């Protein structure tokens, strides 16, 4: 390869890498500027913190959902896992802590409980989907019911309060942006790293693109599938604990609004339902777009119903532009190949 072609190639590589992401980053900037101009107080500390925390809670669901959707599946149970793990850890705290005692220890055990429960629930999803070869949409719709039902059974009909002061600190305190955002950021970095730097991550994409090719390449597809759903569950478990800690309530219906926006963030972030491509960073931008939209609407005193309409329309538009872009790129490549 001579130097000229390699220079031209690196330019093209740059285009491949950036074209998709720039578009949604541009949309995010557009929304931020729009609300910055129209909504008074949008750029205040409290408003921006609000956006970050509300993003963090459902972004934890979107991270694992990104893996699942890149590999060509879907997980509808993440929002109910949030409720179940929050409920279990909330009940554990309120039944062991009575105003005195090792509050920090109890809170950390509750956190561990949430994470283990999320991991176990996700593993259960993965095992069923991989071993019984069932459609993930049906399986996770089933476990959605199982997890919500479980949360209701544990709650016995009513939400739980009386939590530890340390859980309040985890949910609402912490340096600068607060623990909730820091913990979420750690998850974002870990999930992005796994996707890009490990074999497991590479196979998430490969399975979504061509399952048969991956099977013939000798990859254990069952283990891969279980891993993907387990990590979706883990994120949901963390979200369950943090949402309980943030709102200082464990409710059996927590997170019921999150499923739509968690999936929407993944789609707006550039992961197609057909799988094979997408990125954690795209999902982060997608989640921020949704939060900016929601918070901006609140500040403009626009009804909450319009927020839903706006999120729905943004998702459809995002898919449409993604599709156009993909067609354009394939057509361009075909022209280059015949030239």
């Amino acid at each position: 390869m001579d130097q000229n072609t390699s220079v031209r190639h690196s330019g093209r590589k740059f285009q491949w890498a950036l074209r998709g992401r720039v578009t949604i980053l541009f949309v995010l900037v557009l929304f931020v500027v729009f609300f910055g101009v129209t909504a008074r107080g949008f750029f205040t500390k409290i408003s921006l913190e609000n956006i970050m925390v509300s993003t963090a809670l459902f972004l934890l669901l979107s991270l694992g959902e990104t893996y699942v959707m890149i590999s060509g599946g879907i997980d509808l149970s993440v929002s109910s896992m949030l409720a179940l793990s929050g409920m279990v850890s909330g009940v554990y705290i309120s039944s062991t802590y009575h105003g005195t005692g090792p509050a920090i220890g109890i809170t950390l055990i509750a956190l561990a409980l949430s994470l283990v429960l999320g991991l176990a629930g996700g593993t259960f999803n993965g095992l069923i989907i991989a071993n019984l070869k069932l459609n993930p949409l049906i399986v996770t719709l089933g476990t959605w019911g199982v997890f919500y039902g479980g949360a209701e059974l544990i709650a016995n009909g009513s939400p739980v309060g009386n939590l530890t002061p340390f859980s309040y600190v985890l949910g609402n305190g912490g340096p600068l942006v607060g623990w909730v955002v820091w913990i979420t950021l750690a998850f974002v970095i870990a999930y992005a790293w796994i996707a890009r730097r490990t074999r497991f991550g590479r196979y998430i994409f490969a399975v979504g693109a061509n399952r048969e090719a991956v099977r013939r390449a000798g990859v254990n597809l069952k283990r891969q599938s279980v891993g993907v759903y387990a990590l979706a569950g883990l994120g949901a478990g963390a979200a369950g604990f943090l949402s309980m800690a943030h709102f200082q309530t464990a409710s059996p219906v927590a997170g019921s609004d999150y499923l739509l926006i968690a999936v929407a963030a993944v789609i707006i972030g550039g992961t197609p339902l057909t799988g094979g491509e997408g990125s954690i960073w795209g999902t982060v931008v997608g989640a921020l777009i949704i939060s900016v939209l929601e918070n901006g609407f609140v500040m403009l005193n626009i009804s909450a119903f319009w927020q839903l309409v706006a999120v729905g329309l943004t998702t459809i538009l995002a898919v449409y532009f993604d599709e156009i872009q993909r067609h354009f790129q394939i057509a361009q490549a075909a022209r280059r190949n015949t030239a």
Partner: protein
Amino acid sequence: MDEQFSVRQIAKSYAGVQALQDVTIDFASGLTAIVGDNGAGKSTLMKILSGVEHPDRGTIVHNGQSVTIDNPVIARKLGIESLYQDLALADTLNVIENMFLGREIVTRRFGIPVLDERAMAQAAGDTLARVRIGLPHPKTPVRYLSGGQRQAVALARALYFKAQVLLLDEPTAALGPKETSAFTSVIKELVDSGTRVVMVTHNIPQVIEMADSIVVMRAGRIVARVAPQDTSEQQLLAFMVGSQETIEEASPQWIKTHQ
């Protein structure tokens, strides 16, 4: 005869239909072409050799030993690489990622195996240069590649992992004339370097040009083994369809020279 790679009395049936019956072939060094009409059992035989299908009876002998090829991974471990008819590439992954799919080079960071992109890019660069079919930047997703370019990626994979036996199923069906000739010359090079190539194809002129020995199959059986210099397109076609008349009608010259 060289027995380093052979099949003995292979039989396979699907739902009562006998796809292969008593198939015995010694794959001599060089390129063995397997020709036959649709349904002759060529593809079934290739699937058995690559571990995708399992024979009902019979043995496969590799390096003088009887082997069981339960799955494609075992085939690869034995040094048997395949270029599938449907080109088993992951569309959204790039050229390098596809070349190393399932066999990525990793380095350990803090004890965790991490993809070594640089090592893979370097290793791929040298191999891709040998394939000669013009490829775009190796970080281009393969869905933007033409049929020939995709074939080149699959071939580069076989080259890099130093196949002892290379299985080709209709390798040039999706290629243009220029790509076919580039592909042919790479295969010849591979054969010269000692790789045993087994090729299934409909392209009879190509068989005569490339093969060192030709096996003709019909209805799951082997009906002829010939050397390319001792046969003609017409004779091969006659063997494939099983009509003696075809030989006489189509090629009086052949009859004359071979009587």
